[in-house]
């Protein structure tokens, strides 16, 4: 296989896009979490910075950067510093094998026409409205007694940036109009919206996910704090227990798809189940009679694997102060925060890919064009967003379990259920029902 320059550029663009999106999910999810918890607990939540408090996360990030970075005297300095990286790197790289849209043929050239100008104008209008909303919100809070200059500055910067994006889109429109048509260098070739389409896709995800526990364990041990150590030890035992049921419940899906490649798993789900020769249901695995059991096991294990309530025993504020990151401050703490939310997003993407049809839009066959790709990518993002909201919803609804109950249901309920589901799927396949 020869590699030419366009391939390299496309690959770099994909990586930048995905990693940029993942990193930007963090502030958005922090906002959703805080406002969502407030909604569930009948409070207001952070609503001072920007409209609906949307820019609160940026103020938080700035605060993290400006805080003093404390390393405990007794800590193992090397491991203490490296531990946040151990957590963040696997979380960031796992997404590489998840497909996030329909493959499409890149058009050779974009002619200037009503579609291009329309898209540019609508995009510019939306960003401009957002900018006005942010600016208005900032100006409004400026007059309130409890305004802070930092929040005002952040609001002003965001509003200006949004205005510049809107102006840029108008500029792009006039640029294409002046040139007549935009020639694309990679025209005619197939664009696959996945960073690495390897034939062991799901195994790679489990391999990297299993490494993510080292961040927590190392942090717990190197802090030289008994609460941290307890958090780290709990995390390692918990991960070992739930990785098994997570992987075994994914096996059911892989048996149906007949491949470890996630693009094949999604392709299998783009068809339909036809009921009574008339009702068409999308062939997503969550609607399959053989797999719903595995779906429940997988989603609950995903909560345990990402250390989210009701399974956040590594943190367990009520018992261990803050668990493994008790001693962490400043950006090191922020990196643990980031890796938690990024791991959550990756898990959601995996849940969507395995059980909710990936990028498939139900009852509609996307054409292999740019429009079809955008539609499927938006569908994928919407599904991931919904699963992420479920993560938040569950966290603020279900209280933390006891640790022995966690272990008990991991080994005595979920593991047998996952194995039962494998046998069930094997039976279905042998009978040629699916």
């Amino acid at each position, binding site marked *: 296989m020869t590699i030419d320059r366009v391939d390299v550029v496309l690959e770099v663009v994909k990586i930048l896009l995905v990693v940029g999106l993942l990193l930007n999910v963090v502030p958005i999810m922090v906002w959703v979490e805080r406002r969502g918890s407030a909604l569930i607990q009948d409070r207001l939540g952070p609503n001072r910075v920007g409209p609906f408090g949307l820019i609160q996360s940026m103020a938080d990030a700035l605060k993290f950067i400006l805080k003093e970075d404390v390393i405990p005297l007794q800590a193992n300095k090397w491991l203490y510093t490296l531990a946040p990286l151990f957590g963040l790197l696997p979380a960031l790289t796992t997404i590489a094998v998840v497909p996030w849209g329909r493959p499409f043929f890149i058009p050779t050239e974009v002619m200037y026409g009503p579609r291009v100008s329309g898209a540019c104008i609508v995009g510019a209008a939306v960003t401009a409205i957002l900018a006005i909303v942010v600016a208005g919100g900032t100006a409004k809070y400026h007059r309130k007694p409890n305004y802070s200059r930092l929040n005002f500055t952040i609001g002003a910067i965001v509003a200006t940036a949004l205005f510049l994006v809107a102006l840029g889109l108008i500029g792009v429109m006039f640029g294409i109009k002046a040139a007549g048509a935009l020639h694309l260098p990679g025209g005619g070739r197939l664009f696959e919206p996945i960073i690495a389409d390897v*034939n062991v896709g799901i195994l790679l995800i489990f391999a990297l*996910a299993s490494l993510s526990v080292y961040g927590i364990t190392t942090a*717990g041990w190197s802090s030289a704090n008994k609460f941290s150590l307890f958090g780290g030890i709990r995390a*390692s035992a918990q991960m070992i227990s739930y990785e098994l049921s997570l992987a075994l419940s994914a096996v059911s899906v892989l048996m149906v798809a007949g491949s470890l490649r996630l693009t094949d798993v999604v392709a299998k789900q783009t068809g339909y189940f036809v009921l009574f020769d008339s009702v068409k249901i999308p062939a997503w695995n969550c609607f399959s009679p053989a797999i719903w059991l595995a779906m429940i096991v997988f989603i609950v294990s995903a909560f345990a694997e990402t250390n989210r309530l009701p399974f956040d025993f590594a943190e367990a504020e009520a018992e261990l102060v803050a668990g493994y990151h008790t001693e962490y401050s400043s950006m090191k703490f922020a990196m643990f925060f980031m890796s938690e939310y990024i791991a959550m997003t990756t898990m959601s993407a995996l849940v969507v890919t395995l059980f909710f049809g990936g990028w498939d839009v139900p009852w509609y066959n996307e054409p292999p064009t740019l429009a079809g790709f955008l539609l499927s990518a938006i569908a994928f993002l919407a599904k991931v967003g919904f699963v992420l909201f479920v993560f938040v919803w569950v966290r603020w609804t279900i209280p933390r379990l006891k640790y022995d109950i966690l272990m008990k249901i991991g080994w005595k309920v979920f593991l047998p259920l996952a194995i039962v589901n494998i046998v069930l799927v094997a039976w279905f396949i042998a009978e040629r029902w699916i």
Partner: protein
Amino acid sequence: MIELLIFFFFAAVAVIFALVVILHRNTVVGALSLVASFFALAVMYVLLDAPFLAALQVIVYAGAIMVLFLFVIMLLNLQHVSEPATRPIQQFLGYSGSAFFGIALVYYIVKYTVLQLPPGPFLSDARLIGVALFEAYIFPFEMVSILLLAAIVGALLLSGRGGQAPSPVRTEVAR
């Protein structure tokens, strides 16, 4: 060219971290270095066109076994273990013995394996590996599973205090 660079980088990583495992006094650092060494080994498998094996290497060794090792090390809190002093004769026997086995290993690997390595690709597909395991190698496969079962039963027997299964009451008292 790039493959060669990647190979030498990860070969160096594997060797350096393997050395850290045996030379560093801190057991936790040793365990984490072993994880890094295993990871570098997995990259070797990828370079050999065997991504399936690489993924299994990381899942089983780096992800599962080493987590258990780390768990036990942390639970026992083996942070500052002082080694008992060794006699010179013990040191001499240890070094010379391991040097002998190392040289013999390299000699036989060079003589018999590397020169006759079939040109890839190897069994990279999960389906091919499954077919090979359950058709050609079904007997060794089953034997290994029986061996592991025996080991599990043995571990349960040893941990079960005199052959009895620990009753709930007894664990309550122990806690």
